[in-house]
């Protein structure tokens, strides 16, 4: 019996691989929500679309198999019918492939975890035009090297994603946003165990409580003891730029006068993800030069996976922000 991997490459994936081929610079276009992340495609790069569509919902496995060109919104709409969702961020028109390749987590990362942990199996087209599978079709797997983790955030520079098996999580019975005036967001984090998102602009805190009804009700009471709490329709509007900070830096950042780490200034218009470290700011984050050894490993990784540099030329994950 031959290995099972090839037999599960469906016509959509095979067609995508044929389009990618084995030669010439090529990139994949998603929903254009983060088109400039890590740089724009080099001139002359052939632009493709990844195949779309949900392949298999498996609520009892808590997984979903989906093609990369599917929008996250469409995926979540289908999953909602089974009472589940994923940790992927839902941006207007944003695709599953785009979300995974950019690797930015949703504002619910505090509770749902980072995007990088959501990918269980990836089927992608390699630089040589073959389809490869990383990971396994199960919720747990350590069979060999972890290509899935390597691919998330790689901006399509190591392989072009065609299909993903994603981990799903149940949608809890109770979930609501609250807005807190006064009170310490760090205390919210310590005391409200159902908080899956805590957003702080230095003056007010937005909290998404999520879980079993009695626990959410209890945490709502905790919020009332911490400050002036009101129901909120959703999170605040987020400034356009994304900073990657440590949780401690993010706390100081939003709590101070906008002075960020390493002497940078983002302006006072910023919203910090408490306990996570992402800060949404008006100004772009200054470049953060990697240590030379890390830059060298990044270079070797790209060269090893894509010796001719044909996959998404012009894009570099070291310049993602």
């Amino acid at each position: 019996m031959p290995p099972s991997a090839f037999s599960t490459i469906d016509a959509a994936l095979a067609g995508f691989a044929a389009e990618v081929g084995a030669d010439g610079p090529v990139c994949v276009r998603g929903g254009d929500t983060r088109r400039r992340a890590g740089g724009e495609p080099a001139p002359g790069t052939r632009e493709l679309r990844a195949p779309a569509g949900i392949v298999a919902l498996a609520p009892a496995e808590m997984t979903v198999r989906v093609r990369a060109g599917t929008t996250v919104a469409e995926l979540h709409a289908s999953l909602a019918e089974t009472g589940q969702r994923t940790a992927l961020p839902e941006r207007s028109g944003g695709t599953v492939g785009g979300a995974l390749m950019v690797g930015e987590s949703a504002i619910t990362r505090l509770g749902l975890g980072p995007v990088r942990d959501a990918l269980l199996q990836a089927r992608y087209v390699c630089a040589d035009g073959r389809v490869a599978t990383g990971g396994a079709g199960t919720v747990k797997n350590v069979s060999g090297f972890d290509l899935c983790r390597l691919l998330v955030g790689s901006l399509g520079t190591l392989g072009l994603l065609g299909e993903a098996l994603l981990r799903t999580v149940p949608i809890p019975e109770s979930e609501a946003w609250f807005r807190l005036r006064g009170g310490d967001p760090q205390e919210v984090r310590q005391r409200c165990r159902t908080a899956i998102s805590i957003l702080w602009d230095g003056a007010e805190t937005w909290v998404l409580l999520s879980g079993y009804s009695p626990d959410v009700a209890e945490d709502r009471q905790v919020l009332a003891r911490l400050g002036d709490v009101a129901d909120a329709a959703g999170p605040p509007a987020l400034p356009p730029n994304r900073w990657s900070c440590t949780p401690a830096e993010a706390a100081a950042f939003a709590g101070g006068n906008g002075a960020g780490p390493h002497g940078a200034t983002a302006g006072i218009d910023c919203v910090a993800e408490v306990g996570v470290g992402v800060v949404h700011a008006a100004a772009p984050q200054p470049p953060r030069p990697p240590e030379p050894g890390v830059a060298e490993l990044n270079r070797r990784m790209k060269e090893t996976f894509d010796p001719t540099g044909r996959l998404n030329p012009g894009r570099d994950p070291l310049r993602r922000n």
Partner: protein
Amino acid sequence: MATLLGAAARRLGRGADRAAPTADPDAALAADLRAAIGSERVRADAAARYLVSRDASIYSEGTAGPLCLPTSTEQVAACVRIAADHGRAVVPRGAGTGLAGGAAPLGRPVVLSLTRMNELLSVDLDNGVAWVQPGMVNLELSRRLAPYGMHYAPDPSSQQACTIGGNVATNSGGPHCLAYGVTSAHVVSLEVVLSDASVVTLGDLTAEPAGYDLRGAFVGSEGMCGITTAAAVRLTPDPAAVRTLLIAYDDVSSCAATVGAIIADGIVPAAIEMLDQRCVGAIEDFARAGYPRDAAAVLLVEVDGPPGGVAVAADRVAEIAAANGAVSVRAAADDDERARLWKGRKSAFGAVANILPDYYLHDTVVPRSRLVEVLEQVYEIADRYDLTALNVFHAGDGNLHPILAFDARVPGTMERVHAAGREIIEASLAVGGALSGEHGIGVEKRDYMERMFSDADLDQQSRLRAAFDPHCRLNPGKVLPSAHSCADIGSLRAADGKIWG
């Protein structure tokens, strides 16, 4: 560095011309290692080398060169550099609890035991991490974090002995990984020594480090991409409430069916463990943990979190169990009873020794919906090969741990054990399963990789490894079948023609 690698490559090239092994082939190497890290930290005697020639698996054909016991990152780097100078591979090692031969040294490499680097370096509550050295024992870390109301979530059954460095190498799991995730989800950043003896930090404490997720690519690489010398691990707050249920069944199928029913209901318990009657008997003989001997199978289900939800979820689990044919549902009355139940569960593998002296443990994963049929096949296969099968496993994520117990002294037994193991793996892969859920591939499962992955898949895995260790100097001969790791073969032949020659 180019000079160093070039010199090493020349040495490798000369390997075939080496003199017959009458003189001590390690003398010059050991002398250089002693000069670099101190003679008290290098052991080249036969007894020391024998002790590190294997791990907890049944693989027994390892051959170790000098054993080094470094106490700092600089010493680890020095050992790696000297090994390269002598054309030798390096095999890092923690507590040796691995179950796939991952730490078994092939081809007389320098063995680095990281157990003397066992400090808790810092607890950083603001960033929710602790920096630890690789030799820190898993359970000891949680004990040290307890005063902060925190713990380290991955909890392999060997947690009283296994080290964080080894956990990183195998991407270890454990019962509570069902809700909390495996090691990869709990490692934020790593300081590692690469095969060229350079020291790099993979990942950092920021939310979204720039560049490829080298941290994620490294975790689970079985010592083949670098040597962990420090790890920043995530602190997990202790749950506010815990409820542990022991559910008994008259038949294995009803027990397994309950697992899928719980998940399908939208409940994610912290752990769902399943034990069959033979396993319960072994545990009770050994640990007297309080499991019902007369049940055909039992589930150990733990729910944790805020108290309100824990009560709701525990009641719901009990209802689902009853609807699926459970004959009894018992909640642990207090922390002592809960601790006894878990002690029993985690001593299951040791308890097998009361039945037969040896065991071979598989670690496949199957979709939850296929648990019943694969379990039935496991029993059928074991019966056919006249072997004793016990099942105790992480049912919640479909991670089977069929134990084939046997007596290796009986002629012909090993052949039956391997044949039965192969059939269990084929049965798991046939339903879309995975070769290993948490133990890793090592050398034991290496030649099964081609049953799960295509040429293109293995080529990609080989590239990941090559980017970290282009000369295949670290733990060669593991994970990747030989056709996908040619450089490993060259490296091993150079050191000891007997292994691969």
